[in-house]
C-alpha cells in the first residue's frame, strides 16, 4: 500500500493523449494485429464486389505490368537513329518514335526514354501481365480462400467431430476401425492424390474441397476422441446415463460442449494449413479453375516475370503469408487462453 502511494508521488507524468507503453502492453497481451489482419481478410472476402476498385477478371492490355503506385517510372537514355535492329533496341531509338516524345529530335541526339511507366493511384498495387488490377484480384482471392476454408472446416470438421465422438464413446471395434482409418488417412500423400484426381477428372472446386476435407477430418477426429475418453469417465455423464438420457442426448448435451475449447483451437490452427494447401494446389495448377483469382495461381502467374515485374508474384504471396501468420498467432493466443494443454500442436 505504501509503495503505491510512493509511486503516485514519485511518478507524476503528464497524461498524454496516447500512453505508448500501454499500447505496447496491449499489443503484447492481446492479438490486436492478427485480429485486425484477419478481419481485413474476412471483410475483403465478404464484400469483395463493393470494395474492389476494378473488375478482377477483366484487364486493360494497354495498362499491363504497371508497378505499384509508389514506384516511379524507369527511364534510360537512348540515341536516336534512322533504323533500329532488334538487338540494338536497348541503346537506340528510331527517329519516328523519338519524335513522338520530343518533336524536335534529330538523328544522333541523346534522348530520355521511359522504359517502364511509373505506378499510379489508379492501380494501387499495380497490374499483372494481362492488365488486371492486382489489388482487386487479391481482394477477390481472399473470397476463394475464405470459401474453401469455410466449407472444408464445416464439412470436414463435422465429419471429424462425429467420427471422433463415436470412436471415443463406443470404444471397442468402432474405435479401432475409425482410428485405423484415421491412421491411413494421415499417411496418405494427399497433395499427390489431389493432383492425380484433378488431371483425370478436370479442375474443379469440388475436388479441391473434397481433398481438403479428407485432409482435415482425421485431425479433428483424433483430437475429439481423446477429449471424449476423458469426459466419458466424469460423474455427470454417469448421472445422465442413470437418469435415462439417450446416447444422442448425452453426446450432444453433455460431451460435445466439453470439446468445444479444443475444437476452436484446432480449427484456427488448421484453417491456416488449409489455406496454405489450397494455395499450393492453385500454384501447381490444380486449384480453382482460371480466370478466378486465387492467391496461389496469382503467384504462379507472376513467377516467370519476377525479374522485371516483381510485384505480380510478391503481393499475392504476401497476402497468403500474412493471413496464415495471423491465424497462427491468433490460434496460439486462443490456445494459451482456452487450453494450455494443447501446447504441442
Amino acid at each position, binding site marked *: 500500500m505504501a509503495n503505491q502511494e510512493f509511486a503516485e508521488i514519485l511518478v507524476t507524468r503528464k497524461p498524454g493523449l496516447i500512453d505508448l507503453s500501454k499500447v505496447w502492453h496491449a499489443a503484447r497481451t492481446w492479438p490486436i494485429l492478427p485480429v485486425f489482419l484477419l478481419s481485413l481478410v474476412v471483410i475483403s472476402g465478404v464484400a469483395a464486389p463493393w470494395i474492389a476498385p476494378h473488375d478482377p477478371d477483366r484487364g486493360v492490355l494497354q495498362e499491363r505490368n504497371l508497378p505499384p503506385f509508389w514506384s516511379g517510372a524507369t527511364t534510360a537514355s537512348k540515341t536516336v537513329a534512322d533504323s533500329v535492329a532488334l538487338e540494338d533496341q536497348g541503346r537506340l531509338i528510331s527517329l519516328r518514335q523519338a519524335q513522338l516524345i520530343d518533336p524536335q529530335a534529330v538523328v544522333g541526339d541523346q534522348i530520355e526514354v521511359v522504359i517502364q511507366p511509373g505506378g499510379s493511384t489508379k492501380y494501387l498495387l499495380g497490374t499483372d501481365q494481362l492488365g488486371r488490377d492486382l489489388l482487386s484480384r487479391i481482394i477477390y482471392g481472399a473470397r476463394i480462400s475464405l470459401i474453401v476454408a469455410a466449407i472444408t472446416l464445416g464439412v470436414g470438421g463435422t465429419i471429424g467431430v462425429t467420427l471422433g465422438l463415436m470412436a471415443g464413446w463406443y470404444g471397442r471395434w468402432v474405435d479401432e476401425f475409425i482410428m485405423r482409418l484415421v491412421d*491411413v488417412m494421415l499417411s496418405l*500423400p494427399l497433395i499427390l*492424390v489431389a493432383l*492425380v484426381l484433378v488431371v483425370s477428372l478436370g479442375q474443379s472446386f469440388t475436388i479441391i474441397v473434397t481433398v481438403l476435407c479428407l485432409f482435415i477430418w482425421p485431425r479433428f477426429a483424433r483430437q475429439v476422441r481423446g477429449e471424449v475418453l476423458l469426459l466419458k469417465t466424469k460423474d455427470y455423464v454417469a448421472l445422465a446415463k442413470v437418469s435415462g438420457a439417450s446416447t444422442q442426448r448425452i453426446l450432444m448435451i453433455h460431451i460435445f460442449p466439453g470439446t468445444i475449447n479444443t475444437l476452436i483451437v484446432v480449427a484456427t490452427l488448421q484453417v491456416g494449413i488449409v489455406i496454405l494447401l489450397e494455395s499450393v494446389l492453385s*500454384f*501447381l495448377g490444380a486449384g480453382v479453375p482460371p480466370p478466378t483469382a486465387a492467391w496461389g495461381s496469382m*503467384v504462379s502467374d507472376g513467377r516467370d516475370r519476377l525479374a522485371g515485374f516483381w510485384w505480380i*508474384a510478391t503481393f*499475392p504471396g504476401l497476402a497468403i503469408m500474412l493471413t496464415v*501468420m495471423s491465424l497462427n498467432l491468433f490460434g496460439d493466443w486462443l490456445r494459451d487462453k482456452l487450453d494450455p494443454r494443447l501446447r504441442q500442436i
Partner: protein
Amino acid sequence: MQRFLLRRFIIAIVTVMIVSVVIFIMSRAVGDPRALLLDDYSTMEDWDRMGAELGLDKPYYQQYGIFVKDALRGEFGESIQQGRPAMHIVLERLPATLQLATASFALSLLIGVPLGILSAVQRGSIIDQFGRGVALVGQSAPPFWLGIMLMFFFSVNLGWVPPFGREDPRGIILPAITLGWFYAAANLRLIRSAMLDVLDSEYIKLARAKGVSSQTVILKHALRNAVIPALTFAGVTLGALVTGSLVVETVFAWPGLGKLAVDALFGLDYALLQAVVIVFTLLYVAASFLVDVLYALIDPRIRYT
C-alpha cells in the same frame, strides 16, 4: 511390440493399396487407352484383339489384379513423352529427390534443434524473439512463394547462387532452405515447448540443486526428454518432405521425382505418372513406418496409445 509392429505394417499396406486403387480408377477414368494406341485404319477385330492383349475385356476386379501384378514387378508401361519404360525414368530421378530431402532434413534439424534449445533456455531474450520470428515465417509462408522470393533476392539480384538446376553444387542451397524452413520451424516450436515443460520439472530442479553444471543439465537431463515430441514429428516430416519436393522442385527446376510428377501430370503421361505416384507413396509410407518403429523403440509408452 510385435503387435504394434504388425498393426503399423498393416496400416502401411492398406495405405499403399488405397493409393493403388486411386491410380487404377484414375487410369480407367481417363478413357480407353486403345483410342490412343490404335490408328485410324484399325478394324473392330484389331480393337478386340488389343483389348484381349491388354486385358481390357476382363471385369474390373481382374483388371485391377493384373495392374497390381505388373506394379509389383515395377512394370507400368512406357512413358509417352520419352518412349522408355516409366520405371527406368523414375529410378534415374530418385537420387536427386533423396539428395534434396536429406539436405532439407539435415537443415531443419541443424537450425530447429539448437535454436529451440536456446529459445527455451533464454526465454524472452533476443535469441528467443529471433527464434519465434524464424518459426512464424517458416510456418506461414507458402513454400512456393518463399522459394520464388529467395531465388529473386539471392540469384537474380545478388547472383550468389544459381537460380535453378543441379549442375552447380551450390544449386541445392536455395531449394534446401525453402523445403527445410517449414520443418525447422516445426522442430523449433516442438523442442522449445517441450524444453520449457521439462526445465520446469522436479528432476531438473534436483539436478540443479545437486550442483550439476547448467550445460550438463540442459544437454543431458533436459534435452533427452524434450527431443521425443520432435522425433515423432520427424516421421511426419520425412514423409512430407517427399510431397514438399513437388512444389520446391517445380520452382527450382530440380530434376527429381517431384518435378517429374508435375511434368508427367500436365503432359498427360499416365504410365509415368502411375510409376511416380507409386514410388512416392512407397517412400512416404516406408519413411513414416520406419520412424514410428524407431520411436516405439525409444519411447515404450507409444506402443500402448
